[in-house]
Structures are given as C-alpha cells and as structure tokens.
C-alpha cells in the first residue's frame, strides 16, 4: 500500500513537472548525521545593538543571557556540518553538507545550506524553528548535475538524536 502511494505521489509530481514544462524531475532520499557544531553566542554584540544602532530604535534586551536555557537569541549564529548517506543505516556515504544559520526572533533562524553530493552541489535556504522536528528548505540552485535546479528539501528527525532524513524534490 505504502509503495503504491509513493508511486502515485511521484507520478503526480512528475505530471506537475511535465505540465510546467520542466524537463526533469527527481526525487532523492538521503540520510544525514551531525558531524560538527559551532555556536556563536553574540550576546555582547546583541546587547550593544539594542541601544547603539543606526536605525534609531531601542530594543529590550533578552530576559537572560543564558543561552542554554532560553537561547538562541536574535543575532546568534550556528554552523553545522553533516555526513550524508544514501541508506538509513548510514553505511553508504553520499557526501557532506554544511548549514549556516542566523537566528532572529522567537528562536527562529534563517539557514542556508550546501549539500555537496558526488555529482554536484545543491544549495538551499529557508527558515526553521529551534525546536522543530521537521522543516522544509527551498532549493535555490546548484552546480554540476544540479545546475539550474529548483525544488525543496524536507528534513525530518531521524531514528537517532543526531540524524536526519532528507527528502529532495528536484526539478529542472
């Protein structure tokens, strides 16, 4: 049943792609594990910016500067690298990925991502919430086999705490 449903989903997307004049439609599922994380706690720069800025506004500071309790705060940044795999068991390497996230209000971030796959890079971006179990990025471009590619990447939490399932819908 599930296989049949998946086929129909892919068929409809392909139909949509064809109707759009899109020459190529591709669905791709990959799996990722977190490799490295770097967080920039810009609390000093944020506090300075509350009162010393060129836009003439004064903002209220964060209730606390304790990042581990209430962060990330607006202005913080985070960088992530990932190992990519073509199988859920993480046995078959498929490339690497990097994320650069700029946090803004209510623990939301705008992230840009680069997925470096064997036949090219996929570039994506979009907003995500700090506590979200899943989010979707828009594919904004690519290189190599992914030149002039558009689409989306649906990212869901994987089976372990630091793993993710990535579903690419790519159109050319």
């Amino acid at each position: 049943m599930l296989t049949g449903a998946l086929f129909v989903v892919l068929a409809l997307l392909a139909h949509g792609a064809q109707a759009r004049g899109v020459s190529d439609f591709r669905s791709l599922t990959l799996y990722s594990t977190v490799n490295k994380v770097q967080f920039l706690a810009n609390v000093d720069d944020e506090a300075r910016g509350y009162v010393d800025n060129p836009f003439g506004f004064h903002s209220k500071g964060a209730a606390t500067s304790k990042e581990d309790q209430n962060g990330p705060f607006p202005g913080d940044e985070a960088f992530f690298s990932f190992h990519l795999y073509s199988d859920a068991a993480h046995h078959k390497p498929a490339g690497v990925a990097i994320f650069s996230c700029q946090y803004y209000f209510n623990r939301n971030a705008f992230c840009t991502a680069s997925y470096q796959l064997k036949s090219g890079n996929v570039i994506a971006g979009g907003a995500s919430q700090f506590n979200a179990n899943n989010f979707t990025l828009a594919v904004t471009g690519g290189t190599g086999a992914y030149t002039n590619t558009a689409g989306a990447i649906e990212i869901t939490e994987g089976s372990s705490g630091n793993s993710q399932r990535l579903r690419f819908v790519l159109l050319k």
Partner: protein
Amino acid sequence: MDSDRSEGSRCHRVGMDRVAIAFAVGVIGLLGLAVPCGAASSRKATTFVVYAVPDQRGFVNNADDRQRGKGNNPFGNYHVGVQLPSAVETKYGPFPGDVGLFTYKLYTDASHRSGAGSAVLICQYGFDLTGVCDASYQLAGGTLIGTGSFPAKAPTYSFEITGGVGGYLAMKGRVNSVRTSGQVPGSAGLIAANSLVLEPQRLAFTVHPA
C-alpha cells in the same frame, strides 16, 4: 554513474487517471509536500501584491569584532588605507559586519486588515551602508525565499525570488518593495533611521515556475 540517485527515483513522462490524481493529492497532503500552485500549470508568470508592516527589529553591533579584526586576521593588514568615517554607529552605521534583523506582518490590503502571513529580512552589512539580505515570505499558500542587496537608506529595493516551498515549490521571480508611508516619527537626523526596512511597504511579487 550518478550515485546520488541510489535511493531516489527519476521521472520524465508518467501518465495517470483522475482517480490516481485524487488519491495522490491526499497522500501528498499527508506527507506535507504540496503540489506546485495553480500558476505552476504553465510557465506563465503570476503577480500579486502584499503589504508589510514592521513587527520586530534587532541589530547586532559587531564593533568589538570589527576592531579585533583590524590587523588580527588571516587576510593580512587589509585595514591599512581603509578609513571608516567614524565608529559612531547611530550616525554613520551600519558598518561592515553588522547584522539587521527585521520581521513583518503581511496583509493583502493597504489598510492592513486582512492578514496574509509574515516575513523576515536578515541583512548582513558590508561597505557603504549596503546590506546583503536574505528574506523569507511565509504566505498562506507557501513560502517564498528571496535574496538581494540594497543601501540602508534606499527608498526602494528589489530582491530575486530564488525558490519556494509548498504552493510556491520551485518558483523564481522578483519582489519590488516601496514604502507606503512617510518617515519614522522622531528619527530625523539619523542616517539610516529612515530606512525602508523600518517602514510599511508595498511588496509586488512576480513569480514563475523555474
């Protein structure tokens, strides 16, 4: 060999009947993956207008990091010969490295009565008050992603729409922003205080399938 396709699938021309389409729409809805919007039935461009009202705003003043980077950086003493007019952020900023964070409530009408979603603009400033900005427009039918650059005091700006999700899957295009009101009260005399990012705006979108 294209090993990126190991667990994927590729389709070029697939036929289906109406029953299958109806079933697929339901399945796709469950999976949270939307089919491209109505405009996606052709490559024809779609235009629409929304009105943005500033909501939250923040600023990351990286003055200390900028100072630390002078002479203590991996690019050499690039600072020699480069003179910033003043370190007074309120009059001459934003300076390179600063970040502006701006969110908006979106409306379908100029009187701001009918909500249309929200937007965020994140600008990393470089030289000459110019920021390179990422934008996310979260509308009822999906989300559009944009990018572009403009000086902090520019009266208008245009962003490229580089992609979208949901009903705007794989959309490209452009958004043009113009102010819909006058100056921000009490901001006279400040260089960037009248910036468009702090004011209500009219956003005109033109999007088309990639």
